[in-house]
């Protein structure tokens, strides 16, 4: 009896144990399964990207858009070059004509001001004039008187800048006070100032005639080339439109056919088949287009040759002698150096044009290259979409580096202080306060970045005494540095906690040994504790990096969202440029793209890469901790 009862209860408890066990195992496996599903989903959505993007690139090539870009890309520089020449001209003109222009503008401004001040009286006067003759005779004199008085008062009241001489000011007041409509005195002074300005301007321009001519030459040089190119571009775009239309129809037809195959009702099936038949379209014939491209190829090459010869000629004959201002000189010299490079780039496109074939296949390798090493992320373009990864990656990396560079010293120092120097009471409030930062919603940090930090940075950057900092004064309130600062703040709690743990894990035995050898507290900290905790602190930094790279809201709000590879020519000042990020682009664009399009899939690819980066960073942190694990004390 006793044995049976015991055995029975033993069985019962075994069952309970098994249930509890499987309950826990179930929870663990749900988590793992969900993770696997997420990965699977990401991969499924992203995997289609290569195929879709390849098809788009094929269309881009087949329809001749690529052919046009071969010329168009290098040609884009021409406008920049002309622009910098124009800037050189206007900055050289400025000191010569500035005075005259300012005088004229001041006089015109005064006239406007007086007009404004006497607006009411003028209206009354005009109404009086419009009245029938009998009433006008009664009202007009009074209105005239009032207007005249107002004019006198106004022209006496306006403040005249000292740029006009005293005599000019008096003349101007006198002339302005007599401006009664119908009986205007000519505004002699304003006319005179205007004439003066025109004369000075003409003289000044005559002095820089060479430069003026150079600008005109550069602006006119590619006219023929552009004409032929835009002809080609129109053809290409039309072809692309047709190809896209065909593709859409074809896709719809395939769907209908599939539906027809699955339909049970024969009537429905017939209807679907009929509909599919109706949407049948012939693949567009591109042979005509290709013939046209072939026909225009040689003229295009000729134009390129002529254009680059003109550019080279121009580079040799840039009129430097007239220029005196150093900044204009610099601009001019830079342009003079850039012009031959531009011509060479244009010439380099010629062999590419000749080798270009519309039906050359697009390799998977080059699709991958276009994604991972593409320098353009261009969407919803009327010409061609490009999904290049580098602008986003560079933004993410620079922001993460800024954040880590700022958060590492802060959090490590705070951890050392908290773990080693702080009294127990200090420790009691320092730790919770730092860890509290984690509780700030990132969107709130975004506010701070936009409203507070952005303005602060911009104001600071305008202080003359800080102008030695590269990148100052900054142009954009929202930039990578701003985002990096806030991300540093977000990373500090994680890094602080982990670094503090690492310090805590240093065995007491090391500290005992060090103190027994006569080390002071500082010596123990910096020669024993910190070196022993170094790997743990390295892991803390890496995990902070993982957190920073994955953060979305702050970068979306604060990083400035300009999709371009930052310009590194300003060395460290690059951090004050706006950028877009891997996370930000997904958050911003995923809601707006049509499901299944190349753009949609490209965003999933970005997600996959982001996932891989985070995974790698985490794995590195784990490996680091395991590699340098301290013996348990």
């Amino acid at each position: 009896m006793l044995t049976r009862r015991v055995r029975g209860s033993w069985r019962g408890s075994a069952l309970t144990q098994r249930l509890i066990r499987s309950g826990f195992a179930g929870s663990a496996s749900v988590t793992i399964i969900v993770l696997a599903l997420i990965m699977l989903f990401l991969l499924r959505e992203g995997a289609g990207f290569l195929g879709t993007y390849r098809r788009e690139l094929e269309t881009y090539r087949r329809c001749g858009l690529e052919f046009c870009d071969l010329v168009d890309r290098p040609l884009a520089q021409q406008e920049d070059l002309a622009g910098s020449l124009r800037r050189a001209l206007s900055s050289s003109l400025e000191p010569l004509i500035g005075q005259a222009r300012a005088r004229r503008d001041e006089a015109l401004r005064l006239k406007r001001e007086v007009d404004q001040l006497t607006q009411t009286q003028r209206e009354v006067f005009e109404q009086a004039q419009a009245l029938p003759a009998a009433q006008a005779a009664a009202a007009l004199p009074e209105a005239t008187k009032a207007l005249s008085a107002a004019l006198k008062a106004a022209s006496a009241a306006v403040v005249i800048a000292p740029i006009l001489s005293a005599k000019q000011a008096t003349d101007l007041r006198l002339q302005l006070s007599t401006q009664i409509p119908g009986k205007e005195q000519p505004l002699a002074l304003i006319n005179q100032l205007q004439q003066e300005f025109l004369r000075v301007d003409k003289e000044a321009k005559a002095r820089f005639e060479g430069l003026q001519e150079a600008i005109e030459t550069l602006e006119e040089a590619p006219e023929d080339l552009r004409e032929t190119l835009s002809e080609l571009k129109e053809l290409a775009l039309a072809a692309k439109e047709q190809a896209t239309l065909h593709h859409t129809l074809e896709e719809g037809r395939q769907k209908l056919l599939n539906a027809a195959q699955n339909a049970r009702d024969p009537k429905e099936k017939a209807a679907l088949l009929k509909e599919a038949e109706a949407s049948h379209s012939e693949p567009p014939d591109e042979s005509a287009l290709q013939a046209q491209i072939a026909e225009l190829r040689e003229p295009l090459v000729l134009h390129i040759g002529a254009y680059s010869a003109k550019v080279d000629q121009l580079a040799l004959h840039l009129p430097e002698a007239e220029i005196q201002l150093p900044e204009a000189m610099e601009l001019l010299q830079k342009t003079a150096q850039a012009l031959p490079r531009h011509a060479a780039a244009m010439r380099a496109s010629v062999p590419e044009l000749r080798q270009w074939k519309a039906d050359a296949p697009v390799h998977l390798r080059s699709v991958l290259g276009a994604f991972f090493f593409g320098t353009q992320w261009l969407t919803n373009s009327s010409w061609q979409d490009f999904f290049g990864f580098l602008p986003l990656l560079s933004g993410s990396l620079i922001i993460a580096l800024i954040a880590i560079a700022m958060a590492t010293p802060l959090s490590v120092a705070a951890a050392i202080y908290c773990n080693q120097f702080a009294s127990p009471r200090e420790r009691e409030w320092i730790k919770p306060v730092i860890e509290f930062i984690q509780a700030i919603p990132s969107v709130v940090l975004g506010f701070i970045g936009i409203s507070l930090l952005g303005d602060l940075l911009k104001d600071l950057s305008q202080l003359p005494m800080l102008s030695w900092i590269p990148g100052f004064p900054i142009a954009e309130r929202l930039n990578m540095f701003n985002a990096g600062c806030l991300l540093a703040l977000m990373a500090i709690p994680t890094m602080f906690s982990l670094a503090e743990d690492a310090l805590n894990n240093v065995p007491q035995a090391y500290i005992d040994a060090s103190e027994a050898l006569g080390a002071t507290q500082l010596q123990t900290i910096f020669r024993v504790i910190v070196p022993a905790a170094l790997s743990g602190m390295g892991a803390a930094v890496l995990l902070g990096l993982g957190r920073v790279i994955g953060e979305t809201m702050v970068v979306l709000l604060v990083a400035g969202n300009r999709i371009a590879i930052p310009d590194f020519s300003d060395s460290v000042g690059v951090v004050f440029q706006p950028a877009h990020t891997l996370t930000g682009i997904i958050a911003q664009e995923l809601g707006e793209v049509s499901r299944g399009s190349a753009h949609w899939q490209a965003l999933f690819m970005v997600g996959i890469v982001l996932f891989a980066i985070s995974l790698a960073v985490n794995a590195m942190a784990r490996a680091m901790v395991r590699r340098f694990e301290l013996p348990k004390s």
Partner: protein
Amino acid sequence: MVIATDIEPQEPPMIEVRDLDFAYGAKLALEDINLKVARHRVTALIGPSGCGKSTLLRCINRMNQRLPGAHIRRGSIRIEGHDIHDPRVSLTLLRQRVGMVFQKSNPFPKSIHDNVAFGLRIAGVSDPVVLDEAVERALRAAALWDELKDRLHQHAHSLSGGQQQRLCIARAVATRPAVLLMDEPCSALDPIATLKIEELLGQLAQEHTVVIVTHNMQQAVRVSHDTAFLHLGRLVEHAPTAQLFDNPQQALTEAYLRGTF
């Protein structure tokens, strides 16, 4: 209770503990301890667990002062006649004169060379020639030189347990302390490693005054010149080892040694 040992009267004893009462907060751990240790002798501290032998050892280099609430209520400790609690005594200098080896080997996670040189480096020695010489001398003193001379830059944790403990001894003697405190240095070691360290103690006593806490009676008999028996925070008997073991004066000592406690 002062027990006469063979101290030469003209020279102050190496370590002198006078009327020491030591407490952790309200709890008295040592009471009325009087102990004199002569130069170049090995003194074993024995007694049951919790009797205060480690506490007494850690009082000698002031390792206890870090613990919150730990304090000396009464009495003094002198090393070569100088009170170690004199405000003019620098803790760094004291600990350079009084080295310590712990129960569990605790080499730093650094190379063998850097471990031994640590004490000198923190004392401000940076000349590599001086450091190398001191490292060699210390490793020879710990009978490690022949084993390790070709692998000085290996990580200390790659050594065996016994080697690690001897490395800790080398680290402690590198600053040439007058006194070497050892807190059960062999309790975590196998018999062969223990034997090596016991052999070492005899040599170390030629240059240092050694105080060793041990649980192992045979070890006390083998290595020490004098033995002090503590019980419940009091020093019961202090005598030359042979005398204490063969002919204990106190009934408590005898009971402890016979195991009829």
